[in-house]
């Protein structure tokens, strides 16, 4: 029987984390399945489980100075109905799993799972989201994009817990999110695109693009974004191919049981081109 810890507060949780190797358990929507035997039954793990999903310190949502801070153990449902969360942050969460799973799954869990197909990750990469990691004796923050180092791999140390997720918000005007899954809803992502742009009357002020499920980690390219940032609107159309070429070397999908690499590559480029070609419309020139 595996020992499970249910600390009363974050301080106690960190103390446990410092004292022994544990598996951090937030919502459990992934762990409760992954931990099962091929023969079924309840999940079992070879390390004690540290329950953190109930800790109030990890379940708050605040908006302060243009930065949205989401507790890692907020369920996706709670994030979806919180008024401080803008629609472009909600969009990828709406496409995750199903209503009953969203009622227990957490954003922190999605980040720490670090799946190449993790639905929240392109959005978090594109928006330069940062996470806070705490141990008993230290705090550090880093970008989500730096925290995740490979499929299922993160920089989380054995004595750390993910304690905060911060997303700097901006008034993006051209936001686009599309997930192509194995089903119209409640499917695993085959390809996803998150893009957001801020346009002024004459220029592209900011551009963020991130692709999911087409590489070992979510893809973002500042080189590609820089090609269009600060450009006058009329010049955007000419640069679309260069942006696509930039991504061409980065997109590296695989064949697996859900889809083919050819499909993922083709659709990723179709979505990217579609976004870029429709970024500037007639009205923007008036």
């Amino acid at each position, binding site marked *: 029987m595996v020992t499970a810890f249910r600390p009363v507060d974050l301080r106690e949780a960190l103390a446990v984390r410092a004292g022994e190797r544990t598996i951090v358990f937030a919502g459990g929507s992934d762990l409760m*399945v992954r931990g099962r*035997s*091929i*023969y*079924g*039954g*309840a999940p079992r793990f070879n390390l004690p489980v540290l329950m953190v999903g109930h800790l109030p310190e990890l379940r708050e949502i605040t908006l302060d100075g243009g930065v949205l801070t989401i507790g890692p153990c907020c369920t996706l449902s709670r994030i979806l109905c919180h008024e401080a969360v803008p629609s472009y942050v909600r969009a990828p969460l709406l496409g995750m799993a*199903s209503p009953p799973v969203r009622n227990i799954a957490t954003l922190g869990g999605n980040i720490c799972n670090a799946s190449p197909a993790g639905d929240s990750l392109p959005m978090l990469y594109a928006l330069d989201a940062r996470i806070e990691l705490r141990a008993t004796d230290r705090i550090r923050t880093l970008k989500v994009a730096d925290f995740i180092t490979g499929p299922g791999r993160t920089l989380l140390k054995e004595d750390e817990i993910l304690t905060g997720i911060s997303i700097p918000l901006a008034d993006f005007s051209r936001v686009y999110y*599309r997930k*192509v899954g*194995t*089903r*119209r*809803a*409640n*499917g*695993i992502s085959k*390809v996803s695109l998150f893009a957001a742009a801020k346009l002024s009357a004459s220029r592209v002020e900011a551009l963020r693009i991130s692709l999911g499920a087409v590489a070992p980690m979510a893809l973002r390219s500042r080189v590609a974004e820089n090609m269009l940032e600060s450009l006058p609107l009329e010049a955007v159309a000419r640069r679309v191919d260069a942006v696509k070429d930039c991504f061409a070397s980065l997109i590296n999908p695989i064949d697996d*049981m*859900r*889809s*083919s690499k*050819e*499909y993922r590559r*083709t*659709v990723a480029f*179709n*979505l990217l081109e*579609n976004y870029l070609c429709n970024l500037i419309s007639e009205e923007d020139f008036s």
Partner: protein
Amino acid sequence: MDDISRPIRRFDFDEKIAGKALYCADVRLDNMLHAKTLRSTKARARIVSIETPPLPEGFLVVDAGDIPGRNVVPGYYDDQPFFAQGTVNYVGEPILLLVGPDKDMIIRLLERFRVTYEEMKPVLTIEEAEGAGEGFIFGDKSSFFTLEYSNGDPDNGSLHSARIFTDEFRTGLQEHAYLEPQGLLAVYGDDGICVSGSMQCPYFIKEALVRALGWPEERIRVIQLPTGGAFGGKEEYPSIPAVHAALAAVKARKPVSLVFDRHEDMLCTTKRHPSVIRLKSYVDVNNRVIGREVDIRIDAGAYAGLSGVVLQRMMFSCGGVYDVPNLKVTGKAFATNNVVSGAFRGFGAPQVFFAIETHMENIAGALNLDVMEFKRRHFLHKGDTSSTGGIFHNEIKLDEIVSALERMSGYSRKRGPTGPGNGKLGGIGFACFFHGCGFTGSGESELIRARVRLKKYQDNTVEIFVSSTEIGQGSLTTLRKIVARTLEVPIETVKHTYPDTDECPDSGPTVASRTVMIVGRLLREAALEMKRRWDEDTFDVFREFRFPEHLAWDNKTFRGNAYPEYAWGGNVVSVEVDPLTFEVEVTGIWAVYDIGAPVDETIVRGQIEGGILQGLGYGGMEVMQTRDGAPLQASLTDYAVPNALDFPPMEIMLMDNPFSGGPFGARGLGELPLVGAAPALALAIQNAIGRKVTQLPVTPEIIMEMMKRGD
């Protein structure tokens, strides 16, 4: 509408809505033990050794050595063991059962078993089986069944001057994904063994138990419990876990509950036959198909199972709804080291109608003809003969079906090049099809010989005793309606519970769309006799199936009436294909069916809607591939079954065409709705993207490849 069609509250409703119906996994008995199965992880191998961990008190292993009778599942060739003995032929083949009082402990112990295999070269595809010169799985043959027949004169000279059109189609596996996994419960007592659980065919299970235990029939009893969906997946398969559970109950002398985990169920239970179908049609100068050759190859998996009957149904249906003289049909069911293919709603027809409907559409396209006109021209009519030379004795309303579909869907108008105007590629497709109701060929009279029992009690209540099982399709309600209406008694006075082989005669399996049409008709006949004798106190009436006099069937030459009757139908499906992602959105579904008189309009609608959705899933989203013989998508996360957001509501119409040979005019219904959905979807996609669809399921990945190829 006729009285009988008017919907009533289902008799199994109250129990199910309250969560009170006890399915197999819900039953708790004193001293009950649990059981889980150790299965092969190799597609083909010799078992060199099995290392068993030390077992605590109360835990025991059950395997082939515990079979007092014969370790052979009753089947056409008797080629499949209940427990693998020495060799394994597919991933998931059962090797042994571990039984004990604690489920978690069973799992932990099973994880510690070590099976040492000596791997053998597996045969993994139809092509590999066909090309193999040695290393056969089934004796010295690559296929379990090689069949052929012809109609008319397929070698006649006039075909040489005709235009020739050929097509080849492939279809993949489909998993039943009934919501309730397989479950059987065995209790051993002084009277013998009683096995209850989730099943379609209590007598198939009884036969398997007699074989495995070698006991007299009187000591073997099978009772159906509420069953959470089946669709053919609980037709022949449960005989194996039923025997496992029974052997365990006998050895342990305690009740044994064997319930599958979902992943296990998806891995090792029967699936729809993958197929490769080739068609070659000869078309004369009048644009009439005057000859056709059809070759059907199916993947039977590791054991013969029901593949012979599936192959037959495919071969007898491959003419489609068309009157084509000079037909030549060949078929093979190949032995491979894949999971055993078996019964699944439609039983081969979904594969074949996809092929024939797409082929006919392709011919019309090549000849620049309106496809509806082209198909109509060839429609079968009353008095025509079928592909096996049997006369269609009853009115066939295909023309009316197509006209109704055209009216309801606006098919012809929507066929044109004008898109939906939203950047998507719009398309619409239609398919016409039939389903032979009842067992193929002489099965009803030679294999099944259905028998029903109707009992009248002194208090004037009546009870139905048949082996037909309620699997969601409403048989606990429809059969009662037939009897009550015939006897003209209040339906509340007619009793009918889940079948028990101690009480119910063998009315045959709950398959082949036969329950209302054949068993229901026998009950009606029994009720008519009961009505004549109503004044007698308490008595039983038995009726046995008699092959209709006006029909004939020769099982050696495959000539005559392959089915006692047919149900007919047409589907139209409209789609929008996203040119960026190649995803398909179904925007409309229309269905017009001739299933004779509906015995309950709500139950009929439920069967139609559920069947169509299963067919659309089969056509567009249910992908199950294998690697090294193991299904890759063996979980509900990975195998995409339609959910409430995948398809829009559908429009349904029933044709008024009562069948005089069915109770109150009813034909069979259960399978027809699934048969025609995938063809209509495939043709809609074909219309939308302007490329020929050649395989099912038509996934976005396949659509992308087709569009890139620029056919």
